[in-house]
């Protein structure tokens, strides 16, 4: 009856009562108010600093991804939000209320753990019903909502199955249903898809994104897969060694990386030393290029990022720079071509084939050149020299042969 009543006003939308619930919830809190705020969080284990002065604000209804290499502190950040770990210093706020000392069971947050952590002694139904049973909800209501949740994750009919007999993807979905069943405001997901194969991972990515959109819940998603982060998130938080490197939309992160670490971690990048001569004018490799960046000191040393797919290959005489191809790898959609420019090797992705030793020119448009301030990561990334040398060795059968022969003698 309630459903009819709701739907009557908007005959174009079909949705179930729980969706209405979430939509309502979503509307009330949607005005990009902070739902979670981390302030100046620091954590160390046995004198090893794991998080350093971390500040993070998360808006209600947002899909936020924490992205970073293994060991950078992503899980630790989630555990602080979930209440499983108390930071050494700093504060955690929910709706502007201080919750740093609140235990997990009192926080409006649920977690999907890295390996699901389903209750092995309970069947699918009781796993999903768990949170509601703890809350002493009415039996009938619990049964209804479990059914709804199982429908949501496409597991209708699995109620009586033991969770030990489910496949990885099915367990994953039970974990999602279990966490969603108690209508959390925030869902924390710690690499939830890491254990799945590529195909299932893609499906589940779409499914999760879908669920998040439909229910309007805030998702805080941890992954070290950059593609996953870029394709699913509203906001990406790039972390390294316990510090946030950049926060932004996937486009921002990709197009305007703030430092060499981000540029290298997200996609492939050629990163060169340059000097910002004046606004919109940068010099590298002894040549001047116009660019779109401004606001640097005159003659400030900078890092210049050029994405491999942005580079146009032209005849040598027409090129801004001229170099020699040192290796080519076929990648399906494109060729990954390594080109030597005065000893610095670039990666260029091109759909045309240019053979090794061919001399080519490249053309750089102003919008293909991204300027970053120098950082502690400058000089550590973005040079493909070692990359192509490995290929050289492998591609040289004679060198390998002589090595073996020498050993035999």
């Amino acid at each position: 009856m309630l459903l009819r009543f709701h739907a009557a006003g908007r005959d174009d939308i079909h949705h179930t009562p729980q969706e209405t619930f979430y939509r309502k919830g979503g509307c009330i809190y949607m005005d990009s108010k902070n739902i979670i705020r981390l302030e100046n969080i620091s954590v160390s284990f046995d004198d090893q600093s794991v998080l350093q002065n971390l500040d993070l604000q998360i808006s209600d209804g947002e899909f936020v991804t924490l992205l970073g290499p293994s060991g950078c502190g992503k899980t630790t950040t989630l555990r602080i939000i979930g209440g499983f770990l108390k930071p050494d210093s700093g504060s955690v706020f929910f709706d502007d209320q201080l919750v740093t000392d609140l235990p997990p069971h009192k926080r409006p947050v649920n977690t999907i753990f890295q390996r699901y952590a389903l209750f092995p002694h309970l069947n699918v139904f009781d796993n999903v019903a768990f949170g509601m049973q703890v809350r002493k909800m009415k039996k009938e209501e619990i049964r209804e909502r479990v059914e709804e949740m199982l429908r949501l994750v496409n597991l209708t009919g699995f109620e009586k199955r033991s969770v030990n007999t489910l496949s990885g993807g099915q367990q994953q979905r039970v974990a999602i249903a279990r966490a969603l069943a108690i209508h959390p405001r925030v869902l924390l997901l710690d690499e939830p898809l890491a254990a799945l194969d590529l195909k299932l991972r893609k499906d589940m990515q779409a499914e999760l994104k879908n669920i998040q959109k439909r229910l309007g819940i805030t998702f805080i998603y941890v992954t070290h897969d950059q593609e996953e982060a870029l394709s699913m998130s509203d906001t990406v938080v790039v972390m390294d060694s316990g510090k946030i490197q950049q926060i932004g939309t996937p486009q921002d992160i990709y197009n305007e990386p703030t430092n060499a670490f981000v540029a290298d971690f997200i996609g492939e990048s050629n990163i060169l030393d340059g000097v910002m001569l004046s606004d919109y004018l940068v010099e590298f490799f002894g040549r001047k290029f116009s660019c779109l960046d401004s606001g640097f000191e005159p003659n400030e040393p900078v890092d210049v990022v050029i994405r491999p797919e942005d580079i146009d290959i032209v005849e040598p005489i027409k090129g801004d720079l001229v170099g020699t191809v040192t290796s080519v790898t076929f990648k399906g959609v494109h060729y990954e071509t390594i080109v030597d420019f005065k000893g610095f090797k670039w990666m260029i992705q091109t759909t045309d084939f240019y053979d090794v030793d061919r001399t080519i020119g490249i053309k750089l448009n102003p919008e293909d050149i991204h300027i970053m301030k120098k950082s502690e990561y400058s000089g550590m990334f973005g040079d493909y020299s070692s990359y192509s040398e490995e290929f050289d060795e492998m591609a040289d059968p004679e060198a390998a042969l002589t090595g073996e022969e020498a050993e035999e003698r």
Partner: protein
Amino acid sequence: MRSKSAAAPFGLWMLIFTIVPMAIVVYFAFTDPDGQFTLANILEIRNYAKPFLSSIYLGAIATVICLVLAYPLSFIIARSTERVQQTMVMIVMIPMWMNFLLRTYAWMSILEENGFLNQFFGLFGLHFNMINTSGAIVLGMVYNFLPFMVLPLYSVMAKMDDRVIEAARDLGCNHFEVFRRIILPLSTPGIVSGITMVFVPAVSTFVISKLLGGGKNYMIGDIIEAMFVGSASNYNLGAALSLVLMILMLLCMAFTRKVDNDEETIGGMMA
């Protein structure tokens, strides 16, 4: 096929060391000293109801005390760091490496009229009558069989995944709820095997009741012993008593298992 042939040596082992002795016990239980079939031994058991009951009673008390002591102990061990776990398990096991009789004799000299404890209490002008009481028997049982309760409990608790406990807290459980909904059901298999491993030897013991209970508190084990090596010397009645004791044990075990299975729908999967 392969698994069948691999099982053959074990089948032989079972035949020689389980089936044959059982058959001999059954044979003696249903014959008289001349080898004639009789039900007299079985009927005679009526007169031994009291020691049967008191054995089960004392065994049950000892089992409950073992459980109450071992459960928190095992939990603490299982939640400790790897090194602490190893050390604590070792400490629990060390008494088991000493001879059973020796351990029990040691308790005898501690509890005696002029034993260690009474000498100590004597300093305060106190004296307790400890030896030859059912309390002393229970104490002996608890001391000797406690490791058999700790080990199975510890092993199920050590296997428990921390993240499952965190998941329960995440879904709204306070510490008590975590215990009731997660830790207790997940440790039930350990409780069941611990109960079995303590209750069975406790009920049938004769050394403990003899040394610590004196002549006063006869247990069924003492009677059976007397039938075979003692003054009473009646193999047939002894065999009949053993048989009944064994059946009682089997019933107890079946009952515990059933309770276990009812509690958790997938009890079999846990083991």
